[in-house]
């Protein structure tokens, strides 16, 4: 069942096209994460779904009802903001109650509801405080609580965790995940933190300059990016790219990337490869590992730089004129300048056309 449908949505500010023909259908209970670089229009899209911005063209449907011209308050949505946007002159309790009171719900129903949600978010002991007397994490809980009591059809989150420190962010992330699993409410979540996107999303939407690049499950987007932009945007450290040409010989395909020839026998092409086609071959650092001897494809390369991240070692290897990065386990520490044999996990390869930058 479709809970939210965005059809041909366009948004212009004067001559600036901020959103270009966005189409998206969201099933009930999905947790959609919008991911993309700063300024790509994520917040704008969220505001349009909330009704805080008018769209220039297109339509929004929530729960089967066309809400394109409906006020935010009547759209059956709730929103959590990056700056929390709590009402500073009111207690936590009033913050959570105010929206319901405006809807004319009787106090006898509001009270227990607010207290139940406060317990759920572990803020029941803070109900009589002012927002200014809370820590950042507590404030964000209150903001989430204010959204929860409304029991909306769709939750909208605009970078709710980006003002928190790394540790708090991680724990809030798990909590939001649990909350979604227990409530099952449809949610759209904007972030530019990849880790948040990968862990929270049931489906991920990668955007660039007002256009959707790819929609899919996090692992699908991560392992099978549809174009160079998505491949490059996801992953830290980023994907290794090797420029080269395809070679078709006797029914076998391989990519000649200068320093090596990578066999592409097992690669599932989306479009038929042609001989001599200029391509970019992508492979994530975790697919470049010290050889155990069993790999179908291995190269002996010289490490030029080693970075310790704690959990693993990032090893920069010289490959012809270019460099590729491998993610080695922390107990595998190569010596600088001394060649090591690395195995390539070819099942994880991505091949892109150099001209169109699309996956082939």
């Amino acid at each position, binding site marked *: 069942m479709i809970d939210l449908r965005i059809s041909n949505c366009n948004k212009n500010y004067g001559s600036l096209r901020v959103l270009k023909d966005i189409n998206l259908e969201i099933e009930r209970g999905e947790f959609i994460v919008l991911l993309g670089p700063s300024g790509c229009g994520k917040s704008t899209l969220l505001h349009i779904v*909330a009704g805080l911005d008018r769209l220039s063209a297109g339509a929004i449907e929530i729960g089967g009802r066309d809400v394109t011209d409906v006020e935010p308050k009547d759209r059956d949505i709730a929103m959590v903001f990056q*700056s929390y*946007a709590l009402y500073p002159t009111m207690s936590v309790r009033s913050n959570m109650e105010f929206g319901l009171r405006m809807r004319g719900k009787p106090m006898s129903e509001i009270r227990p509801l607010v207290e139940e949600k406060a317990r759920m978010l572990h803020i029941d002991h803070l109900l009589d405080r002012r927002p200014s007397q809370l820590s950042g994490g507590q404030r964000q809980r209150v903001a989430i609580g204010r959204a929860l009591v409304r029991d909306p059809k769709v939750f909208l989150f605009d970078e709710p965790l980006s003002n928190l420190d790394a540790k708090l962010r991680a724990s809030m992330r798990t909590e939001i995940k649990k909350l979604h699993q227990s409530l099952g409410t449809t949610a759209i979540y904007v972030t530019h933190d990849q880790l948040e996107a990968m862990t929270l999303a049931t489906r991920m939407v990668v955007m660039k300059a007002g256009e959707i690049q790819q929609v899919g499950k996090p692992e699908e987007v991560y392992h099978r990016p549809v174009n160079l932009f998505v491949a490059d945007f996801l992953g830290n450290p980023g994907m290794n790219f090797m420029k080269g040409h395809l070679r078709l010989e006797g029914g076998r395909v391989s990519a000649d990337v200068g320093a090596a020839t990578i066999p592409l026998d097992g690669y599932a092409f989306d479009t038929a490869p042609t001989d001599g086609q200029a391509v970019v071959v992508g492979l994530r650092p975790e697919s470049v590992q010290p050889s155990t001897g069993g790999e179908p494809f291995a190269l002996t390369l010289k490490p030029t730089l080693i970075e310790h991240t704690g959990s693993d070692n990032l090893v920069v290897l010289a490959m012809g004129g270019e460099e590729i990065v491998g993610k080695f386990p922390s107990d595998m520490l190569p010596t600088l300048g001394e060649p090591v044999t690395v195995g390539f996990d070819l099942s994880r390869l991505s091949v892109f056309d150099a001209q169109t930058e699309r996956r082939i």
Partner: protein
Amino acid sequence: MRRFLQRHVSQVALSPSLALIAIFLYGFIAYTAAVSTTNSKAFPRFDTFVGLEQYWRLFHTPRWHVAFTNMFLFGGLFLLVTISLGLLIAILIDQRIRAESFFRSIVMYPMAMSFVVTGIIWQWLLNPTLGIEVMMHQLGFESFRLDWLTNPDTVIWALVVAAFWQGCGLVMALFLAGLRGIDEDIWKAAAVDGIPAWRVYVFIVIPMLAPVFLTVVVLLSLSIVRAFDLVVALTNGGPGVSSDLPSVFMFDMAFRRTNLGLSAASAVVMLGTVLAILIPYLYIETRERA
């Protein structure tokens, strides 16, 4: 000597101005206080010490009572009118209206004028034989009457209107800056919560402007106690003494009635009034900073 200079360069650099402040501000305050304990007439004379007698006389002078009461009456009305209308105008301008800077300039323009000019403009406007009244008559409203300047009971409104006209711009600018400083997301959250705009203003935004209110009240209060030129230009204290303010009283006693002792006493009482406003404000300000 050199080392001394190096170490205390900032103190040395500031000392001339500190000395000037000490002499011309605190020195003269002390001097005025001293004069207020004498029976000086046209010139200060310290051989006529009378203790606190001038204060006793001051508080038994009916004209001082009128002036002192007027200060609170004028002040109260002026604060009320200027703050409420200034805030209202700021809220209207905050609605992202077209030609915002045009309206802002109109409201701010009177601020650039001196009180004397303001006083004279309003004297013309309120003059029954020249200004608004004549204009209304010409428009056909024969029964229209505007006798604020000549009626002792309403002359205070003439002062309030003129002072408001002058002070509104500053108040509006302060409130507008405060309104613009409020997080956009609060408005968005309120829109999603379905809170009507007027309720957002009353329950959320205006309470958030509390520090601006404090600043505005203090600034306006000080201008009330200092108000002098406006009264002189607009009503000259009249009719009779009905629009007298303490500063006008003080000036009159010192330079026209040759009663320097009484004038000094009224000056000290005014200083006391200013301090009574300022000290709590400074206390709150410094406590908030700490």
